[in-house]
């Protein structure tokens, strides 16, 4: 166990069924107190990685270690004990639509602690203030925008001051201003609370701006590269260059693997026919 790493992904292979491998022999270390971004295109296994850390699924082989303890997805007591130490921001917030903004943030405090209501009130307002939404405390969830919902979910995720905060696509679907606000919040919260942050995203500029360490994954659950943002930006590796610069041509193909085009259109196979 590396004392600097809060999370270790050790030779992890995982698939939802036997035919499809999502993560393939992945080895990663997420440093304590740092912001680590895991970048990659859609379907490369980023969110699955978060779910394995949260113990939602068990690994097929290898091990996931949380602060020196191997996560066993079938041991409910252990899982719930470890989950009390993490907070997660879901891609679409996963807010409880029947509760107000205030009650959403108060939810984990009311469920997981015996704190008096007066103290819960103060903590909730403090968390909402940290995300700039103290004034929205009494609004219904149906009355807030997508960006606000993401920030409310963040306030809820940090309500119990977790040691690890996991962000699943925190910038997806946000306008530029909301995106900048979200990125600044992630960095600030990490610095102020001293928590370890793990950001899953495909937004290169925002992640490069706020992360201490960046991991780049590719289809098939492979880790292509990792390093500081500067190192990745300067990389000459074709796959890395294509992703961080958003180039359409490169090792990652635009077309999903298919039969030759002539076959699909029922044409005679001519020499020089184009098949993606």
């Amino acid at each position, binding site marked *: 166990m590396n004392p600097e790493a809060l999370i270790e992904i050790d030779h992890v292979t995982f698939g939802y069924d036997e035919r499809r491998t999502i993560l393939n022999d992945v080895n990663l270390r997420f440093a304590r107190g740092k912001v680590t971004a895991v970048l990659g295109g859609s379907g490369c296994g980023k969110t699955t990685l978060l779910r394995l850390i*949260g113990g*939602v699924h068990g690994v097929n082989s290898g091990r996931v270690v949380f602060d020196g303890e191997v996560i066993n997805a079938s041991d409910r007591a252990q*899982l719930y*004990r470890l*989950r009390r130490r993490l907070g997660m921001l*879901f*891609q679409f917030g*996963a807010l409880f639509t029947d509760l107000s903004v205030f009650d959403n943030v108060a939810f*984990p405090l009311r*469920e997981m602690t015996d704190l008096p209501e007066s103290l819960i009130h103060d903590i909730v307002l403090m968390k909402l203030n940290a995300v700039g939404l103290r004034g929205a405390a009494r609004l219904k969830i149906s009355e807030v925008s997508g960006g606000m919902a993401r920030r409310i979910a963040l306030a809820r995720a940090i309500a119990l001051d977790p040691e690890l905060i996991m962000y699943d696509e925190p910038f997806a679907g946000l306008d530029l201003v909301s995106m900048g606000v979200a990125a600044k919040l992630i960095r600030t919260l990490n610095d102020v609370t001293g928590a370890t942050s793990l950001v899953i995203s495909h937004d290169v500029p925002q992640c490069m701006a706020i992360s201490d360490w960046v991991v780049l994954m590719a289809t098939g659950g492979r880790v292509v590269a990792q390093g500081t943002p500067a190192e990745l930006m300067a990389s000459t590796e074709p796959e890395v260059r294509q992703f961080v610069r958003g180039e359409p041509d490169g090792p990652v193909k635009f077309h999903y693997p298919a039969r030759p085009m002539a076959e699909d259109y029922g044409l005679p196979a001519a020499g020089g026919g184009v098949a993606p």
Partner: protein
Amino acid sequence: MNALAALGARALRVLQGWGHGALFFLDLIRVLPQALRRFGLVVVQMHAIGNRSLLIILASGLAVGFVLALQMYYALVTYGAAESLGLVVNLTLVRELGPVVTALLFAGRAGTSLTAEIGLMKAGEQLAAMELMAIDPRARVLAPRFLAGVLAMPLLAALFSSIGILGAWLVAVGLIGIDGGNFWSIQQNGVDVWRDVGNGIVKSAVFGVICTFVALYQGYETEATPEGVAYATTRTVVMSSLAVLAMDFILTALMFSTR
């Protein structure tokens, strides 16, 4: 051989489904004490589930009472037994129609609503969010709803039977002209609190377990897509209704056997 293998695979899948459902039921029973300790959550759900079904239960009960009085009168008057109309209507409602029709209406109204609510919570990752907050969604979301459904069903069935008897009284006394005193006194003499009313309550409690469990299970296990939720709500109505009708026959045979 292929057909045989397919049949075997299908049978295994069905058995696997039953086993999964049984384990889920045991798991739900295991977390019930947690819901009992926070009875406020159960009361909130009872209010929601009861209110959702009240109007349709009362309207149906009244209509069934009206029709039952008319139909029974036409049959009984042929044999000169029209004076026993009140008793026949009462026993029909309290023993059978009250629990069964209430359960069928409950499955269509509150059951589908529960399935859709839980299914959409799953699709919106609210259940996953709870799991990752170390809060068991079975204890926090399912158990209070289950208890509420089981407690609400006998109350709704009692209301259905009561309003049905009242509807029958309106038709029998107001329309047909049967003596009001006779309508009530024959019920007082012929209806046994434990054998008739008590068994009706037991039936509706069993139907409450069936309908609420099926609704919650279908919602919790649904595929988190619009089609999945739509399919789950349909399955809730079909499975609840068939299970209620089958269980009604078994309970009636056990409770009212003349041997």
